[in-house]
Structures are given as C-alpha cells and as structure tokens.
C-alpha cells in the first residue's frame, strides 16, 4: 500500500494477521517441527561458529574454551613501558586525567630531585578500576600511546581496595600490548618510540624506570601475563576463528586456580554425603583463626584460600551470628532427616 503525504509517497506494508487461517494446532506443530530439527542438529551436529549459519551447536564452554577477543576490545586501561630499557611511556601530560568521564585517573608528576622542576614522567599513577567505565577515551587521547586498553576481563576480586590500581600493577611491557593488538600497535609504534626517546633525554637518573624495575624484580604480576597472550596471538588474526584451547589466554595462576576448583568439585561429587558437616566444623576453626589475624588473610591469603576449597567454605564471608544460625538450620535439618 502506498500512502501519499505532502512530502511524497511512503510505502506501507500492512502486517498479515492470519485471521482467516483455521487453527487446530497446526501452527504449534509447524513450530515444533523447527524446534526438533534444531534440537537434532544441536545434539549430533558439529560445533558451529560460522556467522551465516543458523543451526548447530553454538555454545562455548567457558572457561575452558574461550572466544578469541577482537584487537580493539577494551576492558581496563594499562600503562606501557619499553621492554629493553624499562622506560615508561607515560609523561604525565594529564590528557587522560582531563578527559576521563568518571574521573578515575589520578596522576602525580615526577619532579627533578635537585631542581624540583617537573620531569616528563609520572611519579604515581592511580586508576580506580572499580569506577572505570571502560570507555577507552584515555587510550584515544594519549599523545604518547602510553595508556592502552587491556584484554584481561577476569578481574573479579573480594578485595575491594585492590581495585585502586597503582603504577606498579598498571605497567605492562610493550611486547604484551603488541601481542594482544599487533596491528593497532604497528600503526603507532614508530611515532610512540620516537617520542619516548625524546622524553628519556629529559629524565634524570632513575625517574621513569623505577616502577618498571620493581615489576621486573617481582615477576609475579606482569611477567606471566606478558608471556601467555603471545601464545594465543597466533590464532588472533582470524577473529571468528576457532575457540582457543584451555588456558591459552589465561594467566598461569588463574589456570591453576581453575584446576583446583575442578578437582574440588569432582572430589565433592564423589565424596561421602556427611563430608559437608565436617567441612563446616573445620571451617569454624579456620574462621576463628582468620579473625585473630584478619589483615594477614586479606593481604596474602585471599588467592590461596580461594584455591583450596571454593565450595566447602560457607563460613568464609559470613559473620559469626549468621554462621551460627546456618549451623542451627543444618542441625535441625539433619535431625529431621534422621527421624
């Protein structure tokens, strides 16, 4: 149907309401036919990641299997340093701090130790990961290509203050970024490194590298992360390409934790039914112990405690009275089942 208006004609299609069709379940049967066909394909067909197909098994079994991320994928900002010299690319020009919409970037500029004049390097760089909205403006405006968006999205933690990420944990080597976004880095590499050379000349002593040395000495936060994505980078060219194998884009400690969770789960399924009660009793003990030295648990023990038994630790994050109530309920239930 065409409707003519003052501006011209507008084509209109009136939707077909199927008012004249006789219905006695044929419509439903027709639909069920499709559902069953799809079900069969999904059950016996091959795994399917093709974009033009509408049938087959589309599921990706995260976290063992994972899709390859796009190069442009942005999650949280990181800072780059030069692999060879350890010189940081950031010059604390405050562009990112100014553009940041939720204002989560806080930079302190480095000062010359003798003259006190500002030096093109950052003394401290704090990023509030918990408030960051991952818009990517900081990476976009940075004239020195020092701040880039990371691909690591498994950031969940129970330790909230740790999400105010400081310089030492923001730094990644250039090779790490090159591994996750090769073409995007290739576009800016020459200009960025040239600018860095100019800035190094104006940096006295150790300013601009001391954070990098810390990282290299620790080798826990950045080093394994730098190594793993390089392995996955081979398959990165093909964006839709096949799903990466277990752990190819995972850091080693995360993989270890995953495996521990696996084992704990299988052990729990196979274990005797009354083991749950024992676990709680054992947990009360650990909980009490944890309360004597809570700071110790918060700092060093958070990762380790997670790895040991994720399911068997109901008392970990509970207050004492809640735990007591839970225990009472459990006891009552047990008694009921026994009767």
């Amino acid at each position, binding site marked *: 149907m065409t*409707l003519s208006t003052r501006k011209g004609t*507008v*084509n*209109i*299609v*009136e*939707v*077909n*309401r*199927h008012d004249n*069709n006789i*219905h006695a*379940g*044929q*419509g*439903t049967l*027709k*639909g069920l036919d*499709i*559902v069953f066909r799809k079900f069969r394909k999904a059950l016996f067909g091959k795994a399917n990641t*093709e*974009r*033009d*197909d*509408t049938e087959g098994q*589309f599921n990706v079994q995260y976290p063992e299997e994972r*899709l390859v*991320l*796009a190069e*442009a*994928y*942005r999650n949280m900002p990181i800072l780059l340093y030069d692999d060879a010299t350890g010189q940081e690319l950031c010059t604390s020009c405050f562009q990112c701090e*100014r*553009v*940041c*919409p939720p204002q989560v970037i806080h930079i302190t500029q480095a000062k010359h130790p003798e003259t006190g004049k500002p030096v093109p390097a950052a003394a401290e760089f704090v990023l509030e990961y918990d408030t960051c*909205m*991952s*818009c*990517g*403006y900081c990476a*976009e*405006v940075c004239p020195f290509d020092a701040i880039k*968006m990371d691909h690591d999205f498994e950031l969940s933690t129970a330790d909230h203050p740790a999400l105010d990420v400081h310089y030492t944990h923001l730094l990644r080597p250039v090779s790490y970024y090159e591994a996750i976004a090769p073409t995007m880095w290739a576009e800016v590499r020459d200009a960025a490194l040239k600018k860095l050379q100019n800035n190094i000349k104006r940096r006295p002593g150790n300013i601009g590298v001391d954070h990098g040395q810390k990282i290299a000495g620790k080798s826990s936060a950045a080093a394994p992360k730098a190594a793993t994505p390089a392995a996955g980078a081979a398959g990165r060219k093909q*964006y*839709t390409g096949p799903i990466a194998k277990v752990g190819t884009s995972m850091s080693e400690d995360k993989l270890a934790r995953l495996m521990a969770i696996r084992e704990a789960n299988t052990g729990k399924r196979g274990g005797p039914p009354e083991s749950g009660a024992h676990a709680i009793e054992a947990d009360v003990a650990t909980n009490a112990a944890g309360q004597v030295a809570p700071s110790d648990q918060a700092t060093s023990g958070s990762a380790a405690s997670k790895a040991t038994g994720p399911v068997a630790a109901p008392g970990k994050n509970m207050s004492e009275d809640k735990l007591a109530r839970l225990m009472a309920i459990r006891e009552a239930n047990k008694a009921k089942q026994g009767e």
Partner: protein
Amino acid sequence: MLKTEELQVNIGPQHPSTHGVFRMLVTVDGETLVDLKPVFGYLHRNHEQLGEVNSYLQNMPFTDRLDYFNSMVNNHAYARAVEQLAGIEVPERAQYIRVIMDELSRILNHASALGFLLGDMGAWQTSLLWGLREREKILDLFEYVSGARMMCNYSRFGGVARDIDDYFISEVKKLMQGLPRYFDEFERLLVENEILLVRAKGVGVLPKELALSYSVTGPLLRGSGVPYDVRKAEPYAVYDRFDFDIPVGTVGDVYDRFLVRVEEMRQSYRILEQALQQMPEAEGGHINPKVKQQSLKPPVGESYARVESPKGELGFYLVSDGSGSAYRYKVRAPSFINLSALADMCKGYKIADVVVILGSIDIVMGEVDR
C-alpha cells in the same frame, strides 16, 4: 451476586517480567485489572545533570547507558544533536557506517525484544535464546569494530571512532546470508502458534487516536496503524537514499506489535543491503578531521535531534551557553513516554496480560529512569 472486593497488588520492583527494576501498583477486581500505576526511579542516576557537568565528549559514553541494548543508536542521536548545535559536517562514509550500525542494532533489539516478549508469555527459555543467538552474532561484530559489545561508545562528533574494514564488511555480509532464513524460521515458529495467538490477539489494544495523543512512538505507534517513522518523516543521515517500507498494524494489539517488529527486521535487512552496496562510493573518511573533539565549544543556541531508535523516537535537546559543557541536556527517551500508555492499555484485561502488554512495549529501564 457475590460482592467482590478490589485488591492492590505490587508487581515488581524485583520481578523477572518487569525488564528491570520497575514496579506496577496494580488494582485488581478478581482477575480483572482496574487500575495500574507505574512506579519507577530505582535506577535514576540524574543522567541529565551529568550531561550538564561533563564536557560534550565526556557525555558520549554515558549515553550508552540509556538504552543499553542499542548504544550505537544512542551515540548516533547524541552526536547528531551536538553536530547540529556546533554546525559540524559529517562525511558521507561516516553516515553510512552509522546507518549500518543503527540497522544492525534494530535487528538485534527486535530479535531479543520478541524473545523477551515470548518469555513473558511463558515460553520459557527457547524463544528467548532464539532471539539472543542472532543478537550475539551482531554484538560480536560491534565488539570487533568498537571494542565493546554493549557500551560501544562509537560515535564521535563528525563521524565515528574507528573506520570499518573489509573484514567487518565481509562478516556483515556473511551474517546477512543467514538472516532471511532466520526471519523465516522465526515466523514459521511463532507467527501462527496458537498459544501466541491466544495470548496476543485482542490484548492490550491501543487505538490509533489514543496512540497519537499518548505520544507513543516506534513499533507501538506503528502497531496501532499510524505510519510514522522518523527515518521517513525527517530523514536523517542518509536514510533518504534507501528504499524501504513502513510496516503498520491494523488493530493495535500485542499481536500487531509483534508482527510489526518481525517485519521491521526484514526492512532493516533491506536497508543494510542497500547501504553496503552504496557505501564504497561514499565520499570522505570515517570522521571529520577538523573537529576538536575534546575541547568542543558549540556557539550559544539550542538544538533538538531525533533518530528512530528501535524503541521509538529518541531525541536529545541541548542548550548551549558557549562553554565546554551543555547548559541543558535533555533526553526524550522513547521507553519513558511509551510507558505512559501502559495503564490505559492494561485496563480491563486480566492480570496475566499485564506482563505481556508490558513486554510488547519493549521498555528498557536504563532509559526510563535515566
């Protein structure tokens, strides 16, 4: 006769069918609905004041959070309003890219909206995932080009953030090979399904005149038989170059809205086809290089720009005082205004129909509450 008593029931705010944190204070007489009061604001974050504090560019990622299903369309609308205010020209190629993103958004929004609607009708997970599968494929493409699946933050003043490459275009074409089959399957699966017909036909009728006076837009208005589409009424970007139809309903019930959405996906497919065909000849790059994005200071004045978002007419009203941030920033959110018709549409129907009617409006609370 038995004397009946009216009863007040709260549906929500935490309810799987309310599409977010939304409360409906319902007065029922038996099963029949007598009155309905929408109560919301649980997600209110004073978005409009943020717009007055932030610079123009800083506000772009916040518009993603309005209708989080279609951040591409939100970005487009906001960028248009600022471009109009500052008199920025947009290169042709950027216009085409925006149109492609808008139409992909429309397909993904309608696919998932229909899935959610069927979920509200009680078809538990199958139909929802049916819609979400196509959405997922499109979101992957968005992620490839913009860096994020939902919070795309893709438009800039005078263009878009990154150019699309051949790989993206080939993937869109690949996706489009599967789409007609998907639409056919969707129709075969559901359009004549008796359960759907019983739940949707003659339910939530919104007559033509009432729809207009209620200022509703989008599939809700077209379902009521008014052929009003901003893409036709006030062609923005390059929409005047495409040949597409406006689907309209005849009765204005839930079923009509359902059918209009299915047909709109087909029309979006047509626009995509034409846009991809015409784009290689488009002039200019993906962005106008002269625009100072970060320190944009539009001249004193005001502007209102609207686009046809999948939910309806999405408009941004901006008043500039010549400084780096807007003096007044107002969002004409389609979900918010479409919601005003809810009470009238629901009156007289059964309480179980309320959920279906709400699903057929297709609201997003991020946009309603702002």
